[in-house]
């Protein structure tokens, strides 16, 4: 889904923000991007969004080299990428529903589609009852849910989240994480930059660690910090006890193939977003393409 091929990014007059990064993120993965402040996490996400261009190397999204994408096609790339930030970035003069609808309005979706999709996604994030509230009447966690709803309402292939729990307390953060996990279970690839040790440790997903622009770790089912065990076995399950809240979320393969998928009831995605596993390859990409009739 996302491939970095020897990518280097140098901002004007600085040392490289990213150095020779090569990695691949598969469709449907949930990936944490960790590293201290200034290590290049935000730059990594901006490169995927084509907000920045790499100085060297190539970045592929859904098989396309986005470095050679002409400027007028960039919006179509971004329609396939949802985005969530630490500071929510809601429009303060619009209601919750209007904020979410705005994302569809400005890409020219018909009104009927907007009405139904907004209602669906607000139910998914648990804010169906607060559709007509203003953002400043909501808690931080609720505001972030609105932001996630806005990012997801167009059913992107990838959800990028830049420290989405950075402004939230641990309990609220857990709620946000289980929401992101639910979204991931619909087949959406999730890439989340974070500082939050507790979350990374309890989710046990793939961890990519950056240090001053260098890729220092890429580990399946990792934790935030390196442990001795990690050094010896980067792919094995660690012996660290799981937090009970997330223990059930652990085995994604089991969950994927599970027949009782709660999300299907909450969000009727089954026909246009098939819940897929790695083996199904690009079925979702092509179905999304066909449905939208658009390419970038």
């Amino acid at each position, binding site marked *: 889904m996302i491939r970095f091929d020897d990518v280097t990014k140098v901002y004007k007059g600085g040392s490289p923000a990213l150095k020779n990064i090569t990695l691949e993120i598969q469709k449907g993965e949930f990936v944490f991007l960790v590293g201290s402040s200034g290590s290049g996490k935000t730059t990594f996400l901006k490169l995927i969004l084509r907000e920045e261009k790499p100085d060297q190397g190539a970045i592929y999204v859904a098989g396309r080299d986005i470095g050679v994408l002409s*400027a007028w096609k960039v*919006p179509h790339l971004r329609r*396939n990428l949802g985005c969530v930030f630490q500071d929510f*970035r809601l*429009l303060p003069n619009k209601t919750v529903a209007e904020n979410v609808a*705005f994302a569809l309005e*400005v*890409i*020219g979706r018909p009104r009927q589609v907007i009405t139904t999709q907004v209602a669906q996604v607000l139910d998914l994030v648990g804010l169906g009852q607060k559709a007509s509230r203003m953002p400043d009447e909501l808690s931080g966690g609720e505001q972030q849910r609105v932001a996630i709803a806005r990012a997801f309402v167009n059913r992107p292939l990838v959800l990028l989240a830049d420290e989405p729990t950075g402004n939230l307390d641990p309990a609220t953060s857990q709620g946000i994480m289980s929401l992101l996990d639910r979204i991931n279970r619909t087949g959406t690839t999730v890439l989340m930059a974070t500082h939050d040790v507790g979350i990374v440790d309890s989710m046990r997903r793939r961890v990519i660690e950056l240090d001053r622009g260098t890729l220092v770790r890429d580990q399946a089912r990792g934790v935030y910090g390196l442990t001795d065990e990690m050094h010896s076995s980067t792919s094995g399950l660690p012996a660290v006890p799981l937090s009970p809240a997330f223990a059930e979320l652990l085995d994604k393969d089991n969950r994927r193939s599970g027949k009782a998928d709660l999300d299907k009831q909450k969000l009727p995605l089954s026909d246009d977003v098939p819940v897929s596993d790695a083996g199904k390859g690009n079925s979702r990409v092509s179905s999304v393409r066909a449905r939208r009739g658009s390419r970038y």
Partner: protein
Amino acid sequence: MGLSVEYVAKETATNLWRNRLMALAAILTVAVSLSLVGTALLLRQAVNRQIGAVASNVNLQIFVNPGAPKSQLAYIRQEIKATPQIESCNYLNSTESYNQAKQLLKGQKTVLSVLSPGTVPTDFRCQLHNPNQAATVGALFSAGIPGVYKVTWPGQSIHVMEQVTSVLQLILLIVAIALLVSSLVLILNAIRMAIFSRRREVSVMKLVGATNWFIRIPFMAEGLVQGFLGSLVAVGIVMLSNWGLSYLSDRVQALSQATVPSGDLLVTEILVVLVGLIVGVVGSSVAVRKFLDV
């Protein structure tokens, strides 16, 4: 898929209302400058018509004393024939001259009441091979030919009229252009403010994949509307100017032909509206290009 008229209309109206003071300033400046442009254009057409009416058919007018004897008339005719610069002449007898005077002085009852066919000078209206020789020929005839009341050629008066109006036009045009430039800057600034006040929306739009034109068009429509509203005000003022002109031309004999036919007035008004739209589009395009980073 794409930009709906409804969306653009809604966005544009909201933007205009949010920055209504800036928008008003821009609209009024457009109105003032376009009024001047339109008035200058009207004036130019009116003057051209006046000059044309005087200059086109008659290069030289030889007035004959009212009631001059036939022998004098015949002598003048002979002299005209003998002058090689004169191409042809047309003699208006006393009745014809009187009728023409009545038309020219239409509305001025007191003057008309003292005129009669016998008191109006008759005249030869002559065309020259070369109108520039009017002064030479004119001097020839005004120098002591019996029965000649006076000789006029439009050369002098037209020249003065042309000079005065061209200076006037130049001043009007310079002021109008200065105002047009400032209205362009005002529209540009109004759009810049609109972009600034909507920077959050714009950043979200970019993030969710709105196309560049989708983001730009409401702002450009805003500039277009400002230019258009300004030009509408100007259309009204140009109409007033035209009314003033025809008022003058009804009363001032020297401007009797200085009117603009309604077809030409319409063309002028359309031109005013077009310039208004162009100023709006150019101003907002520059603002969008400079300040909307998409």
